[in-house]
């Protein structure tokens, strides 16, 4: 039986000091190692917040997050940064490439942060990834000189450079046209299969969600549905998502 790489217990996130807004309410999830999980839900339901908490970028108000058997509530800022750098890759909705650096340099950046300086074998690997996802020709270009799809691929290459155990992607296809979006998704799935990386994607797109192994639906800060797509079957899963009512777990 495969183990869980992410495990949360009673995760809560409250924003605001005086006017408290509860954004995540008692989230208990388990993400299998090497799986592909899609996080869906209406706008404002807390998907990004959850993803940022799981990615150790944001801190939950209460509850525990266990990643790769480590409990992170008492780890300091530097420890979190180092864990993110070594074991996590991020693809954000709005690329977030560094505009001052070329495509190749952007891809290399997590490697620079890891070892403190550029290293040749990392560069070699970066060029391999860029070739694999079809942006080798763009390596000397600056983000402003690339199309949205190209930029998103650079972001994906950057997320892969340190060979992370986990990749978090917040609407990675959100501002791409459908075709490019699917291409990017296909690429991520392939990498997930090849490298045994665990993949967590926030998406609005049903089709993309149905391509995942698991679907977690958030509504109003609570988990509404958790589906195992293979067990349920694609058609049944698709119907299940359509169903507006929540199973209170």
């Amino acid at each position, binding site marked *: 039986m495969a183990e869980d790489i992410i495990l949360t217990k009673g995760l809560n996130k409250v924003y605001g000091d005086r006017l408290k807004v509860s954004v995540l309410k008692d989230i208990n999830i388990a993400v299998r190692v090497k799986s592909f999980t899609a996080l869906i839900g209406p706008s404002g339901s807390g998907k*990004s917040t959850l993803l*940022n908490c799981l*990615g150790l*970028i*944001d801190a939950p108000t209460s509850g525990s997050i266990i990643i790769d058997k480590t409990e992170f509530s008492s780890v300091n*800022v*530097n420890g979190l*940064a*180092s*864990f*993110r*750098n*070594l074991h996590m890759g*991020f693809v*954000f909705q*709005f690329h*977030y*490439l*560094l*505009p*001052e*650096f070329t495509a190749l340099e952007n891809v290399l*950046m*997590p490697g*620079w*942060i*890891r070892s*403190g*300086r*550029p290293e040749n074998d990392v560069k070699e690997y970066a060029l391999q990834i860029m070739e694999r996802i079809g942006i080798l020709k763009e390596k000397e270009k600056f983000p402003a000189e690339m199309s949205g799809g190209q930029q998103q691929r650079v972001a994906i290459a*950057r997320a892969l450079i340190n060979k992370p155990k986990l990749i978090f992607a*917040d609407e990675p296809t959100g501002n791409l046209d459908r075709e490019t979006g699917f291409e990017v998704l296909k690429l991520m799935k392939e990498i997930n299969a090849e490298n045994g990386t665990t993949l967590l994607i926030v998406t609005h797109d049903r089709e993309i969600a149905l391509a995942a192994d698991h679907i977690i639906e958030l509504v109003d800060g609570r988990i509404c549905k958790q589906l195992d797509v293979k067990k349920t079957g694609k058609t049944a899963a698709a119907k299940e998502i359509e169903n507006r009512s929540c199973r209170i777990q």
Partner: protein
Amino acid sequence: MKKTNKYEFMIAWRFLVKGRFQTLLIVLGISMGVAVQLFLSALIGGLQISLIDKTVGAAPHITVMPVDTIPKKINNEQGKISDNKKVFYSERREIFSWQQYVMEIKTEPGVEIAAPVVNGPGFAEKGDTVVPVAIKGVSAEGLGIYRIKEKLLAGGVELSGENILMGKAIAERLAAATGDKIFLRNEKGEQVLAVVCGIFDLGSDAANKLVLVSLDRARSFFSFDGISAIEIRVKDVFAAENTGKVFKKKFSNVKTESWQEKNRELLSALRSQSSSSGTIQFFVLISISLAIASVLGIAAVQKSRQLGILKAMGATDRSAAGIFVIEGALLGVSGAFLGVFAGLGLSVLFMSATDASARFGLEITAANILTPAALAVIASVISASIPARRAAKLTPVEVIRNG
């Protein structure tokens, strides 16, 4: 402490290169500040050195004179003999035991020359022209105090026999040249023949009305049994006052005066000049610092997106801050480097623009160059620490969430 990562340097460098206009502006600002500081301190330094050189370059640094009052007892109250236990005569208008004083003075470290002189008023006469002059009898060693050899316009410095040296002003008025015979007359109307051996220019009008004769000649000319004063030159001009104090403590029967005591006004003028130049330099430094702090402060806000991404990818708070400190240091170093060249260029320009007669040397020393340069670098790094702190505080989630 963990050493600075190379990638922080690379990012800082790239941020600066990509922020072309901003970077150029701030580097120019720093270099202008450094140039002004360098030039100003070179100018003030040069001016002061030339003023001090005019004052004491060809004049005694310390003068030991007879006390012009009733002499004190030789023995003090305790019955001990004063003046460092050596028996000296009480002195009034002349110093009689001058050889002992000279010997004693020469034992003091830092003393270069100590020589007896005899001073007196008189007249120089050639043909129909009579000019009032100050006559000074000096020993060969004493000539060194006036650096006569360097200041000589014509002739030699041989003071034996009837030979005399005279200042440029007298020579002009008497229309005297070297080899000419003139008469010297004292207050009593006694007259001696003299041969002009050399003519000198000591730089100031008063000094150029001087006639130098040999010590022995002056003593008989003015009927002196002793001498008028002992003139002293020390190695470090600015130590003269302290050395003078030592003599004041040692000798109670003579009066000691250093050039600093004689030129209080000049010194206080120099001091206020230095302090006003220091004030200007201080405010130049402050404005450089403010400029850096504000430009880097803006940069820190502009780059918060990038910093957020870097932090999300695992850059530590320390690294984020380090980027700005490195930026500050790079700006400071390049500004200082350029500023030193600009300052030197300004100095060269100044030297060639001012006319030669009014020119005084600019004082360009390692300290004058390195001090503003080092201050600029330090100020830059300190000012950069403000945006650096901001960068350290930024959390990645602020950026990720808000775009």
